[in-house]
C-alpha cells in the first residue's frame, strides 16, 4: 500500500477516533441529560462512521475488493441509534419533567409520553 493510501486510511481513523473522544468527553462534560444525549450520538454516527469508512478504503486499497460489511454495520447503527436516543429522552421526560414545564405540542393532543399523567 502506498503512503498516500495509508495517509487517507489513517485520516479516517483519526477523524473517527476524534469524534469518539469528543463524544465521550461530552458525556462527562455536559450537565443536562437532554444535552448529554447529543454527545454519544456523535460517537455512534461520525465516530464509528469514520472508522468504517477507513476500513472500507483500506479493503479497497489493500485487497482491491469492495467490502459490504461496513455498510451493514452502518445500516444497523442508523436503525438502532435513534431508537436508543429516543427511549432515553422519553425516560428523561417521563421521570423528571413536569407537564407544565413543556412547551405546547401545537395539536390538541398532549405530549404522548405524559399522556396518562395528571
Amino acid at each position, binding site marked *: 500500500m502506498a503512503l498516500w493510501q495509508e495517509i487517507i486510511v489513517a485520516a479516517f481513523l483519526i477523524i473517527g477516533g476524534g469524534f469518539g473522544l469528543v463524544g465521550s468527553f461530552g458525556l462527562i462534560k455536559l450537565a443536562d441529560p437532554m444535552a448529554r444525549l447529543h454527545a454519544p450520538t456523535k460517537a455512534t454516527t461520525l465516530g464509528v462512521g469514520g472508522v468504517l469508512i477507513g476500513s472500507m478504503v483500506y479493503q479497497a486499497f489493500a485487497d482491491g475488493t469492495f467490502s459490504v460489511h461496513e455498510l451493514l454495520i452502518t445500516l444497523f447503527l442508523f436503525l438502532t441509534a*435513534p431508537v436508543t436516543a*429516543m427511549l432515553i429522552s422519553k425516560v428523561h421526560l417521563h421521570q423528571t419533567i413536569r407537564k407544565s414545564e413543556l412547551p405546547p405540542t401545537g395539536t390538541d393532543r398532549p405530549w*404522548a*409520553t405524559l*399522556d*396518562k*399523567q395528571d
Partner: protein
Amino acid sequence: MPLILIALLPFLGAVLPALMIRAGRTASAWSAGAVTLAALTGILAHAPAVLRGEIIFYQLDWVPILGLNANFMLDGLGLLFSLLILGIGLLIIIYARFYLDRDDPMGQFYCYLLLFQGAMLGIVLSDNILLLIVFWELTSLSSFLLIGYWKHLPEGRQGARMALTVTGMGGLALIGGMLLLGDIAGSHDLSVILQSRDVIQASPLYVPALILILIGVFTKSAQFPFHFWLPQAMAAPTPVSAYLHSATMVKAGLFLMARLWPVLSGTPEWFYIVATTGLITMLTGAIGALFKNDLKALLAYSTVSQLGLITMLLGFGTKMAAVVAVFHILNHATFKAALFLTAGIIDHEAGTRDIRRLGGLRHLMPLTFLIGTLAAFSMAGVPFLNGFLSKEMMLEEAAHTVWAGSHLFIPVLVTLGSLVSAAYSFRFIAHVFLGPRRSDYPHRPHDPGFGLWAAPALLVALVVLIGVLPALIAGPLVAITSSAVTGGDLPYFSLRIWHGVTPALGMSLIALVGGAVLLAAFVPLDRLRASLPQDTAKAIFDGLIAVAVRLARGLTAGLHNGVMSRYALAFALTVLTAAIFAWATGAAGPATRALTPVPPLPLIGWVLLVAATVTIVLTHHNRLLALILIGIAGLIVSVTFVYFSAPDLALTQATVEVVTIILLLLALNFLPRGSPREGSTARHVRDALIAIAVGAGAAALTFVVQTTDFAFDPISAYHLANSKTGGGGYNVVNVILVDFRGFDTYGEIIVLGIAALVIHALAESLLESPVGARLARRAPDKGESGDPHPLLMVVATRVIMPIALLVGVFIFLRGHNAPGGGFIAGLIVAIALLMQYMASGYDWAVSRQRFPYHGLIAIGILTATLTGVASWIAGYPFLTSSYGYFTIAPLETFELATAMGFDLGVFLCVLGAVMLALDTISRLAHRAGERPSPYAMDVDPSRPQSAQRV
C-alpha cells in the same frame, strides 16, 4: 406366543382402553377384554405342554452386567397364577363395565387395571429374580393407582398411600433379600437358584436373606403384623378389591413363597417364622372379620385370615402341605372373588354395604342370594364345595404338625380359626340375606342385569364343579403346580370328598357346628368386643408417618431453608477445603511455560472487567445498575473469546448475554427497585473474606495450570483430526456438540426443556399464591407512560425481524462447517421475537402467538431423538451421524449431515425454552393488569383521530 410378549401384552395394550373410551364405555371395555383374552390365549397355547411337565423358557439379555436378564419361565406354578390373573381379570373387566358409574373415568380404570395385570403376569412368569422385583414394584405402583381410583374420596387416597407405603417398604426389604439370595446362589436366575438348596441353607446369609424376603412377602400378602393395610385398601372400587385383594396381588407374596419353597423351606427358621405368622394371621383375621359391619371389611379380614392359612401351610414345609396350599390358593381365588363381586352387587343394588342396614334380601335378590350363599358356604368349609376339600386337607396336615414339642398347639388353634371362619361366613349369609325384609333400604334392591351377575355366577359354578368333581376339574392343574412348588417328586394325594373317618373330619364338624353356635351368640359377643380396645393399627401407622414427616421436615428445613447465601457458603467452604486438601497432599509440576507479555488491548478489557465486577459488589443494592454492569462483564467475556479465537463461544456468549439481560430487565419490572441490606457488618466481612479466599484460590489454580504443561495429551488433537472425516464438519466445536458428545447435548437440551417447564409451573403456583394477589393490586411507582410502545421502536423492530430471522437461518445452516449452529441460531431467533414483545407489549405479542412454546420444546426433543434413533435403522449406535454431498441445479454442491436434524432439535428446544421463560413473565404482566392493545403502537399518525388511544 413368546412369554415376553405375553407378559408385555397388557402393558402395550394399556393405552387401548384409554384411547377407546372416546368411542364409548363398551368399546373401552371390549379393548381391555381383547388384550386380556389375547394374553390368556397365549398362555393357554402353552398349557398342554406345561401340563405334560415341560417348562417353557424365553431368554433375552437385558442388562447382563448386573445379572438382570429378561428371562421368562412358565411352569405349573406360573400356569396356575397366569390363569388366575387373566381368567379372573377377564371376568372383572366384564363386571366393571356394568359396575362403574357413568361419571367414573372408565378408560383410566381399564388402563390401570391392564398395567396391574401386566405387572402381575410379569411376577409369575419371571425367571430372573431382579426382573421379578421390577414387576413386584410395578404391582405396588399400579395397585396404588387402582386403590386411589376414586380420587375424590379421602379414604381412597389414604388407603392407597398406606398400601403403597407398606408394600413399598416390604419391596425394599425384598430387594435386599433377593440380592443376598442371588449372591449366595451365584446367579439371579430362578432356575439356577432353585437348584442350589444346600448351598443356600448352609450359608450364614440364609437367615438374613430369609427374613428380608419374608418381610417383603408378608407385607404384600397382608400377614400379621402388616395386615392392616388390606382393610384400608377396601376404599377401592369393588372390582379392584375382588381382583387385587382376593385373587391376585395379595397372592403375589404366597406365589413368591411357593416359588422359593424348594430352596428356603424345611428349616426350623422357616417353619417357626412362616407357620407361626400364618397361624396368628389366620386367627386375628378371622376374629377381625367376624365383627366387621362393612361387607367389604368383613371380606378383607376374611382374606387376611385365608392368606394366613395358606402361609401357614407353606410354612409347614412338608410336600403334602404345599400341595394343599396350592389347592387352597385356587379355591380361595374362586370363592373369594365371587364373594367380593356379590358384595359389590349388594352395594350397587341396595345402596349400602353396611350389614346392620341389610337383611332379608333373599326374596328381593334370589339370584344374588344363591351365588353369595354358595360362595360363603365354600369359605365356611361346607361339603360338596371346593372350600371344604382344601380346608379338610389343611386340617389333616395341621392335625399331625408338632409345634415346639406340642402336639395340640397347632390343631387346636387351627380348629379355632376354622370355627371363626365358619362363623363369619355364616354371618355373611344370615345377616345379609336371611331375616325379615326391611322397609328402609337406601335403594330398592333387586337382582342385577346379566353383566353384573355373570362373573360371580361363573366363579361359583367353578366352586361347585371343583367341589363335586375335584380330581377331574382341578386334579391335573394342582398336580403340575404342586410339582413345580415342591421341585419335582410329589407325594401321593387324592382330591376326594370322602377320606373316611379321620381327625380332620371331626375338626371340620367342630368348626361348622361351633361356627353356627358362635354366630347365635353374636350379639352379646359384639357387645363384649365393643367394650375392648378397638383396632389401633391405623392410628399407629398414622402416628409413625407423622413422626417420619416431622423428622424429614426438620432435616429439610435445617439444611435447605431457602437462604441462598447459606448454600453459597456451604459450597464455597467445601470447595475451599477440598482445594486446600488437594494442594497440601498433591504435587504440582514446576512452571514450564513462560509468561506471555500483556498487550494493551487485553489490559483494557481486564480493567473494564475488574471495574465492572467491583462496582457490582459495591452498588448491587441498585438492581438496574447491577444488571447493566453484569451486561458489561458479559460483553467483555464475549470479546475475550473473540480475542482467543473462539468465535463459536463468543457468538453463544453474546447471544446468551442479550437474552439474559432482556429477560432480567422484564422480570425487574415486577420487582422492587433495590435490594435491602441484610445481615450484620461482621457477617459481611466474614463472607467477603471467604469469597476472596475462594477467588484467589481459583486464580492461583488457573495460574498454575496455565504455566505448566499438560500431564496427558489433550483430547483436542483427536477431535481436530476426526472432525471432518468422522463427523463431516470443519467446525470442530459444532461437531463435538452434535456428534462426538451428541449424547451429552441430548441430555442437556432435555434438562433445558425441563427447566423451562419448571419455571412455567412455578410461575403458575406463584400466581395462585398471595404473590399473585399482590401483583394484581400493584400500582406502578411512577405514573405510567402514555406511550409505552412508541412508533419508532415498533417500526424498527419490525424492520429488523426478518433480517434477524434470516441471520438465524444462516447461522444454523453454516453451523457444521463455520461458527454457528442450532444453539446460537435458536438464541438469535429468540432475540428477534423478544424484540417484538418489548416493542408492542407482552399481551399484544402473546395474542399473536400461534403455537404453544411447550410444544416447541417437545418437538425439539422429539426431533433430536428421532435423528438419534434413525441411526439404529441403519444398524449403528444411537446418534451416529452420516453425511453426504448433494447438487441441486442452480445451487453449488452442498453438504447434508444427519447431525443437522439433531441440531434442528437443539434449535427448537432452545427457542422454546427461552420463549417459555418470556411467556412466564408475560403471564405475570397479565396478572399485573396489562391488557392486550388492539394496536401495535400507541400513537400511530395513520390511524384516524378517533381511533387514537386516550
